[in-house]
Structures are given as C-alpha cells and as structure tokens.
C-alpha cells in the first residue's frame, strides 16, 4: 500500500482517478481549486478528459453529458458554486446518471466566505435541487476518509445509477495529511463497466434495437412516467435506509452525555470526548459517516433513562445537522449545541465547555 503526504483536495482527485474517474469538468472557486488543477494534469496521463467549464452551471451540464456516455465522471465545487450546479444535479438525479459530486464547502449564504464551514448540510441532504430527490451523502472527517469515500462513491454511483455526493469542507480540503492511496482500478474493469453501460448510454445507437433516450423521467435509457420514476426513486431511498446507513459510535452504552457531530466537527468533537472521559465524565460519541441516509438507528439505540443530554457540534449557525438529531430524539433528552459559522472553526475547548454545561444542567 502506498502511503503519501497529500493535501485533501489533491488526495480526493487522485482517489477519483484510481477509482476509474476519466472525466472531470469544473470551474474555479476557493477552496477546491486544487481538485481541477490536479485533474487537468493527471487525467491526460490515464487517457481521461478534463474540461474547464465556462461556469458551474456549464460544468455540471458537462458532467451530465460525460456520465451519459457511461464512463466514470466527477465534478467538484464549493457552496455557492454547488448552488449553480444544482440545475444539472437535479437533471442527473432525474435521468439516473451515475456521477460523483464533491462540495468542498465554505461559509454562506451567498458568496459567504472562503473559509471552511458546514452550512450546506440541508442543501446536501435534503434539497440539492428542485423536485425532492435525495442522494447518498458522504461526510469525511479526515483526508484518509475523503480518499476512501471518494473511491467508494464511484462504485455506489454505478451500483444505483444515481449521483453520489461528498460533502467536505475547506478545512479537510486544504489540510495535508499522510494517506494510504487505494489501488488503481484496472483498465479491463473499467472497459467491462463501460461495455455494460452501453445498455443505456447515449453514444449513438450502434445497431441497438432501440435508441436510448436520456432525460428527466427516464431510467436506464428508457422513458417512464414521471410519477413512476418518483416512486421508484423513493423506494430506492427507503432501501438505502437498510443498506447504506453508515455511522460510528463510541462509549454510548453507559453514556450520560452524547456528543454528536459529522465531518471535520466530528474530528474535533472526538478529541473533546477523550479529554472529558479522562476527567471522569461518561461521554459517548456518535458520528454519521454518511449524512444521508441519516443514521437514525444510532440515536434510537441510546438508553435515554441515563442521558443528561445530547450535544450537537457543527459549523453552522443556525444549526442544520442538529435538526436531524432533534427529529429522531423527539424530546427524549435535552439537546444542546456548540456552533460556529461563517468560516470560523469550532474549538475543542468550546465543545468541552458546552458539554460540561449540558452535563450539569440536569
């Protein structure tokens, strides 16, 4: 296994290449410029295509076209750029195109700030475009996780023939860490997948009995009534609740307080948890690894009779992730928050302080 020291954005791009990504389109926006820059250099080496779009709107439309040819393809952007991409992201969900979208998020709303933030939680998990579609959403908390999740995202996109979303942030994207890179997908594997995708791809019918039609309200190159498509998508989202939930817990069994967070905040929160435990507090930790589908089960399994509260730590004001926690906890325990926003990084000491306050409140 290859261990290298890499910046988050570059590691994501390299992981994508190794996963078989052979197309990238994107538009410059901080803090994710290292992704398109890396792809522009690396894709030609593996016979792939890099296209700098004239805008995020165009870049996402390019991704739609590339995905429709049946190859593994990706885009990335940040927050307000992702908003511009929401048009084609909706089309790709509408037309069932397997692609990967990475949001290296920053402060908001609007142009916000270029510093890291977690203010795109609702956008990523609930409303990435019009029409009520959902996507699998990974939330890495280290560069290694960003690598591993990017690699897996391509497989899941192909498995479900649907866009898969990675929600990271400027912190993880700009940070350098040692990472173990996954193996290169073989050309034979990718060729076989591309061949299988010819069953629906739009590349000229080439003697197929029927022409392939890709548009919103088609599945696998064949038209279907829109309501039927909506229902089938919903069934898939429900299946994800069984098959795709991913989370980690630590010390929740005898916990009197739970600290819960996702992404980079979870990394900081985990460190707060270990300090609190050393000081004698019975603190448990829950971290959704995918934030959609939301791991409700992790919170359902808690022993609420022991709990003094649940502390949600996130870099968003007003909170967003906290609402999903509240929805599953249903007032069975007091919920506290530790929040930063607008590009300010959450501090471990602030999490510890908020945890102690909640601990003592009962």
């Amino acid at each position, binding site marked *: 296994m290859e261990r290298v020291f890499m910046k988050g954005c570059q590691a994501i791009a390299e992981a994508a290449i190794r996963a078989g990504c052979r197309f990238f389109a994107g538009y410059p926006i901080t803090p994710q410029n290292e992704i398109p820059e890396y792809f522009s250099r690396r894709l030609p080496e593996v016979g792939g295509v890099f296209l700098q779009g004239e805008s995020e709107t165009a870049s996402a*439309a390019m991704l739609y076209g590339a995905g429709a040819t049946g190859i593994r393809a990706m885009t990335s952007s940040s927050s307000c750029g992702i908003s511009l991409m929401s048009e084609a992201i909706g089309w790709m969900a509408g037309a069932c195109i397997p692609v990967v979208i990475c949001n290296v998020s920053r402060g908001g709303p609007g142009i916000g700030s270029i510093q890291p933030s977690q203010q795109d939680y609702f956008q990523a998990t609930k409303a990435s475009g019009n029409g009520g579609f959902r996507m699998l959403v990974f939330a890495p908390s280290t560069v290694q996780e960003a690598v591993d999740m990017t690699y897996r995202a391509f497989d899941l996109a192909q498995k479900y023939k649907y866009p898969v979303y990675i929600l990271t942030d400027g912190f993880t994207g700009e940070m350098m860490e040692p990472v173990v890179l996954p193996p290169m997908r073989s050309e034979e594997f990718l060729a076989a997948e591309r061949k299988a995708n010819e069953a629906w791809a739009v590349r000229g019918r080439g003697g197929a009995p029927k022409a392939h039609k890709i548009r919103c309200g088609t599945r696998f190159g064949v038209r279907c009534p829109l309501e039927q498509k909506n229902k089938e998508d919903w069934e898939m989202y429900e299946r994800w609740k069984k098959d795709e939930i991913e989370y980690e817990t630590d010390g929740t069994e005898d916990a009197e307080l739970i600290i819960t967070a996702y992404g980079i905040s979870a990394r900081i929160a985990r460190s707060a948890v270990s300090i609190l435990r050393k000081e004698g507090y019975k603190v448990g930790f829950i971290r959704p690894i995918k934030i959609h589908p939301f791991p409700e089960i992790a919170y359902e399994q808690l022993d609420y009779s022991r709990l003094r509260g649940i502390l949600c730590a996130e870099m968003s004001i007003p909170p967003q992730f906290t609402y999903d926690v509240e929805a599953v906890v249903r007032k069975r325990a007091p919920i506290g928050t530790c929040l930063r926003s607008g590009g300010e990084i959450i501090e471990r000491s602030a999490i510890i302080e908020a945890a102690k306050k909640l601990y003592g409140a009962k």
Partner: protein
Amino acid sequence: MKKIYARPKGLYRNINGYCPGCLHSAAGKIIMSVLEEMDLLDRTAMVDGVGCCANNDNYMDLDAIGTPHGRACATASAIKRCSPETIVITYQGDGDLASIGLAETMLAANRGDNITVFFINNANYGMTGGQMAPTTLLDMKTTTTPFGRNPKEHGYPMDMCKILSALRGPSYIARVTCIDVPNVRKARQAVKDALQHQVDGKGFSMVEFVSNCPTNWGLTPLESLRFAKERMLAEYPLGVYRNL
C-alpha cells in the same frame, strides 16, 4: 421504377405534434435525411434543448439526451470528448441558444468543440406562448413586448451567425431557411457540410434555420412564410458565414 423520395429512415412513423405550418418539422426532416444519406444514424447522439425543440425526441429515432435550458452545447462538448467516435448534434431554439445558453454556445464555439449545432430561430419563445427572444425583430409584438420590441428598452435582435463568426474557434457557420423549395435544397447542403466538418474533425459547426412560428406570430402558415421572407431575412441574411 426508381424511388426518388421517401420518409427519412430515422423518423418514427408517427404524426408530429408541431403546430400546423411550423418549419421545425422541415428542419428535422432535413437533418434526418442527411444523417441517413451520410450513413450516420447509428453513430449520432442528439442533444436537445428545452422548448419546442425537445419534441424532436418523439420523432427522431436517435440516441438522445435532453438538457437543462441552454446547456446543450456544454453537454454535447462533454459527450463528444468522452466518445469521439459519436456524431454529436444539438438542436436548440433561440432562447435556449442565444439567451439562457449564450455562454455555453459561445464557449463551445470558442473551444472549437467538434460538435454540430442546429439552431432554430423563430424570433420568440414558442413553447411558453410567444415571449420576446434575443432574436425578436424590432417592433415585433410578443406577449412580453405587447407594444413591440423597442431597442431602448429591450435591446436589438442578436445575429448569432455574425457573433460566432467573430470567434476563431468555429469551423463552419451558415444560415439557411426552409421557407421555399430552393432554400430547402440549400439548407440540406448546409446541414451536410456542417456534419462533414464534424466527420472530418474540423471543429465547431452551426447551421441556423430562419424559421417561423405561425401560432405565436398570430399569422396563418402562408402569411408566416411571407413574414419570414420579408422581415426575418432582412434582419438575418442567409449564407455561409464561415467555411474553413
């Protein structure tokens, strides 16, 4: 007996839903007959825009992808680059190509992406009920210019052939019309030349069809042809603008 005319192979055997007298169907028929003649039907992917253009998918037996409004050239560029053996065409209206998709059109042309754009200019947004388009003529009444297009308020009609000809990227640019038989023949030749540019790998090609919209112009089909001939062609001169 020698067969001299037949329905193009690639058209489905159904009745098209375009309004009576609309020249969309003439453009579609020409494109399909040329693709058949050049033996490209099996290699072609059509990227259709939003609006009346999107209807083509119901009539043309081609691999096809519907794109968000204005983004056809971006999607087409990506398909072509990922699958260079595919003949990639777009079919777009004036609002799609020259307004909401102006950046996508200009930048695909500027990159010289090896795609062929078919642009139907009928001077209004047809599908949505006849609003002003970038190509609406001066003084022309639309549902959003009820007193006529006034340059001080609404700007001037945009001549896309001239605008794109200012770029170095495009390889072939022509403007044609299907309002009469001699012009249908010329249109057919232009479609063939544009596609040949793509086959030869020369880069971006576009054929603009000066078209009509009897329904939203409030004219009979025959009157609409007369209007197109007298007014539209005065603003949008026919001819080959670029042929490298």
